[in-house]
């Protein structure tokens, strides 16, 4: 343990002794272990799906100081999995909602709120004052940033990651253990791996993975058991299979092997995020657009055109624009012979991204009178028909 603040073992009050009695009677924890927990400083990067159960169980366990990094606001779509936040917190800052819930759960816990995104400029300073980091972020650039900062500072990085029904967990960057870059040297190009917002996630999955991360953090603090250092845990919730694979330290790893990485880099550049955003913007500006209000006006004037919805059938079940025809993007090429290039065509999806690609495909196939519905069915719900469900 390398706590930078309190090095003197804190005493426990009678209230704390009673509260933690189920820990104190475990020989592996005991009074000394409980004092270690009280002395510990754990940083949660992200208080969303993974950070929610981690914050709750670390607080309940009596970890003395919880640092929280987040800059987001609670949204209704978070509540299906982010159990730290309640319905009454919708619209509030996640940090405020988290602090209230943690203080209610265990007023002995000191919460340090960092309302910021973790960046190359602040990561070393923020992480540097903690003993352990729990990575609960939702993007590759922050994962590489957390990893490199933890390697440079020698702080354990308790990793967890989820997608749909599957999760991964490990403990990186402890002495002699491999790091995230030993597992994945480089991130996938943007857009190849969908986010949970695009691909969905079973709400309980971050509960499983987040509690595994918490278990590992508690074991590191207590110095007991065998952690996931040097192992990658794969969880498949659909088949309910747990599997561990051996992770080796890569001697050519630029972070923990060769130590070529001596300072934090530009992670948006590294992950291609900025380049992809510029390419998307360029592509979007090349596609003719129509707004939902303009579309509604054309429909009400009884104009003759085709409206194509390129979302997936399960999205079509949730909400649809009257008069639309469903042709999922992946099947557009097969459906081309059923479309008439002489007619005007408006294409839509959920937010306007997939339909922009569909418009480009149609243009490449010789269609000249094609428009993309700006903002998709989401903006249609906002601007035209609020009775259309948003998802």
């Amino acid at each position, binding site marked *: 343990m390398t706590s930078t603040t309190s090095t003197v073992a804190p005493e426990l009050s009678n209230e704390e002794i009673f509260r933690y009695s189920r820990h104190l009677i475990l020989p592996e924890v005991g009074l000394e272990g409980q004092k270690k927990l009280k002395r510990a400083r754990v940083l949660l990067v*992200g208080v*969303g*799906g*993974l*950070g929610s159960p981690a914050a709750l169980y670390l607080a309940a366990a009596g970890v003395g100081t919880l640092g929280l990094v987040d800059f987001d606001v609670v949204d209704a779509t978070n509540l299906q999995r982010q159990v730290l936040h309640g319905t009454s917190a919708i619209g509030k800052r996640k940090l405020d909602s988290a602090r209230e819930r943690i203080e209610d759960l265990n007023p002995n816990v000191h919460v340090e709120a960092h309302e910021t995104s973790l960046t190359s400029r602040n990561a070393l300073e923020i992480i540097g004052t903690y003993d352990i980091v729990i*990575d*609960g*972020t*939702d*993007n*590759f650039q922050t*994962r590489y940033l957390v990893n490199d900062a933890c390697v440079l500072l020698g702080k354990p990085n308790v990793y*967890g*990651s*989820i*997608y*749909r*029904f*599957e999760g*991964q967990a490990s403990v990186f960057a402890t002495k002699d253990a491999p790091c995230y870059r030993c*597992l*994945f*040297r*480089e*991130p*996938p190009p943007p857009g190849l*791996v969908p*986010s*949970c917002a695009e*691909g969905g*996630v079973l709400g309980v999955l*971050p509960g499983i993975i987040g509690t595994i991360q918490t278990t590992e953090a508690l074991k590191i603090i207590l110095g007991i058991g065998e952690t996931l250092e040097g192992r*990658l845990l*794969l969880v*498949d919730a*659909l*088949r309910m299979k747990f*599997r*561990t*694979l*051996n*992770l*080796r330290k*890569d001697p050519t790893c630029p972070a923990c092997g060769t130590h070529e990485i001596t300072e934090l880099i530009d992670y948006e550049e590294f992950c291609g995020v900025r380049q992809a955003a510029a390419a998307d913007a360029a592509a979007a500006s090349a596609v003719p657009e129509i707004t939902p209000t303009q579309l509604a006006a054309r429909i009400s004037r009884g104009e003759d055109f085709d409206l194509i919805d390129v979302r997936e059938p399960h999205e079509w079940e949730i909400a649809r624009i009257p008069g639309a025809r469903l042709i999922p993007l992946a099947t557009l090429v097969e459906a081309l012979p059923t479309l008439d290039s002489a007619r005007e065509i408006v294409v839509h999806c959920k937010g306007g991204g997939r339909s922009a690609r569909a418009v480009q495909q149609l243009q490449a196939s010789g269609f000249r009178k094609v428009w993309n519905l700006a903002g998709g069915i989401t903006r249609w719900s906002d601007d035209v028909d609020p009775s259309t469900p948003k998802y």
Partner: protein
Amino acid sequence: MAVTLFLPTVLARLADGGTLRSEGGTVGEVVANVAERFPQLAPRLRDENGDPYAFVTFYLNDEDIRFSGSFAAQVKDGDELTIVPAIAGG
């Protein structure tokens, strides 16, 4: 050699399920066999030169193939190949 491949669900939809049987003498041959049978899956397993990506890790039984010759790693009958792509959700 007959090898069993385990795909994560995100890739399983590009093949006929998450557990595939394949053949080959090396990991690269086993992957090529599957890539040929499932053209949509192929670009998710290896790049256009047939080399592994830095963001998809292959485990032969419990070990990362990069430490045993990468796609040139020899396989035995009954070996299991697990494909672990990078995911970032949280």
